[in-house]
């Protein structure tokens, strides 16, 4: 493939987007970087949820209203959804072989991911500014 001397495409053009051109690994890299960020963030979230076990609405909404929780939870959900969309995309690509279904799922996955993040942020802001 590379180095085909009969090709009208330049060597650079053939290499762009492939690993050796230091591009084309966005998906792989994004999955790893989000994984790395999620080690502290997800541990914080789960620890916070455990500490709020059995708490009533007043306690939980007060926790959710603090600027730190608002920022950290928003960030955690954003990166979690990004990580989940990348992961589910690979699962769909690996196991769904029927063409219309596969394409529809690959379109819906990032769209629903963005919708989910927006819904979460709107909810967080509503809780924070409700008083």
């Amino acid at each position, binding site marked *: 493939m590379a180095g085909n001397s009969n090709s009208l495409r330049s060597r650079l053009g053939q290499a762009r987007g492939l690993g050796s051109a230091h591009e084309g690994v966005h998906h792989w890299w994004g999955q*790893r970087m989000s*994984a*790395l960020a*999620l*080690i502290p963030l*997800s*541990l914080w979230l*789960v620890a916070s949820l*455990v*500490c*709020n*076990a*059995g*708490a*009533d*609405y*007043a306690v*939980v*909404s007060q926790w*959710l209203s603090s600027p730190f929780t608002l920022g950290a939870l928003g960030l955690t*959900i954003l990166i*979690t*959804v990004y990580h*989940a969309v990348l*992961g*589910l995309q690979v*699962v769909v690509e690996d196991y769904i072989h029927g*063409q219309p279904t596969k394409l529809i799922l690959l379109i819906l996955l990032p769209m629903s991911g963005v919708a*989910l993040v927006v*819904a*979460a942020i*709107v*909810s*967080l802001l*509503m*809780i924070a500014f*409700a008083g």
Partner: protein
Amino acid sequence: MAESQSSGAKRHPRPLSPHLQVYKPQLTSFTSILHRFTGIGLSAGVLYLLCWLLAAAHGAESFDRLQDFNGSVIGRLLLFAWSVAFFYHLLNGIRHLAWDAGFGFELPTAYKSGYAVIIGTAILTVAAWVIGYFQMGAF
């Protein structure tokens, strides 16, 4: 292109490599497939977390109703399953990151880290639930 490939495969059936059922189950393949399963399960968990936030944003009544469900047997089973999936995916994810960085790929090490992930998952899950019940004043 995909169509021409599949029609070609019909005319000239290619030899297939042996599939899952002929292999002895291995810890390494088991932990690998479990990573995917827990990842899919945790994606559903994020949806549930969103429901929890939406309920809290909607008001005390909706929030209390969801918390009641969390306290039910089905709710607790779901939360327990998600907590197992979370700690497993977290620990095995760290194992994968180490592999990606070039560490621990030797077979004996891969087996040791696999057992460490399973034992660590059990310990962290039990610890989380003990602390949770302690928070609720169960002890």
